[in-house]
């Protein structure tokens, strides 16, 4: 095998690995934001894995990009790694890859500096993740024919399904979640319900109004009514 072919295989392989890793990162990120848990693992594992996987994905993408540029078979300028559509070879699809890579850099940089830039800025930038992943998938499908046949096609479909499922879960809970204005009312309804259940299990009817007129004390004392 020539070195060119080795580089080409390395680029394709790390590309596929990066795609899978990115899928895992997105699904873990959505799980963390919904306060979900991975079965059998503590909660901090979700955020920890999310972070570690994203760094691992960057490592794989770095190798993917370097090997693709170094491969003499096709001409891809160094600048094309970060500047979209700057590559002479397949400018559109590689451009999408560059866009995705830029976004990943932004996501990770802001996450590392999270304490310094503040919550709101960090959150605003992190929404990019929902754009970043589809762009990466488009880049993968368009840049080479690998993912269009065989088990790599199945892999791609699984990744898409996983992210779609997680995203629809996210959207679903966001739509049905009570806004801040409804939270106290909902908590009150739940609390009153559980009190009513306790009342009924204590073998008494839940009174609708207080004081219950059936239970008046015999003498109507007016002075210091009921105080010590």
């Amino acid at each position, binding site marked *: 095998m020539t070195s060119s072919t080795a580089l080409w295989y390395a680029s394709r392989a790390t590309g596929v690995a990066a795609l899978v890793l990115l899928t895992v990162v997105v699904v873990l990120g959505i799980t*963390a934001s919904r*306060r979900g848990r991975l079965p059998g693992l503590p*909660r*901090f594992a979700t*955020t*920890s894995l999310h972070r570690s996987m994203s760094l691992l994905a960057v490592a794989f993408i770095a190798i993917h990009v370097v090997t693709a540029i170094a491969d003499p078979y096709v001409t891809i300028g160094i600048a094309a790694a970060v500047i979209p559509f700057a590559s002479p070879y397949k400018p559109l699809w590689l451009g999408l890859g560059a866009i995705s890579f830029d976004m990943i850099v932004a996501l990770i940089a802001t996450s590392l500096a*999270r*304490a310094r830039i503040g919550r709101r800025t*960090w959150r605003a930038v992190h929404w990019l993740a929902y754009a970043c992943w589809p762009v990466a998938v488009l880049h993968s499908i368009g840049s080479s024919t690998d993912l269009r046949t065989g088990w790599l096609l199945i892999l791609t479909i699984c990744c898409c399904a996983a992210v779609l499922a997680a995203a629809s879960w996210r959207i679903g809970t966001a739509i049905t979640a009570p806004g801040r204005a409804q939270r106290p009312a909902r908590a009150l309804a739940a609390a009153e319900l559980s009190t009513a259940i306790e009342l009924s299990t204590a073998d008494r009817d839940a009174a609708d109004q207080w004081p219950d007129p059936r239970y008046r004390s015999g003498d109507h004392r007016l002075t210091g009514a009921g105080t010590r």
Partner: protein
Amino acid sequence: MSEETTRLQVNPIACSGHGVCAELLPELITLDEWGYPVLAGDGTVPLWLMREARRAITDCPALALRLTSVPAVASGRGGLRESSEEPQRPGRAGAAKLGT
């Protein structure tokens, strides 16, 4: 002589009850029945837990934990730290019962 104590503080508005902090720092943080963190004591972080505390702070998905340094001298109503007063309820049975 005033020392500085480092205290953990929860930003209650940002906190959305993820519970990651309680797993990483169970010595100082427990969760109440609704999933929100309760700090042990006044949240003072002993030196041997500083590393775990910093990890809890960076790992909080909502960035709701922070460290503050407070001078160890008892703070009265100086400056604008206290923006409202709470009445003392010494010795009344109700206060003792409610622990406020």
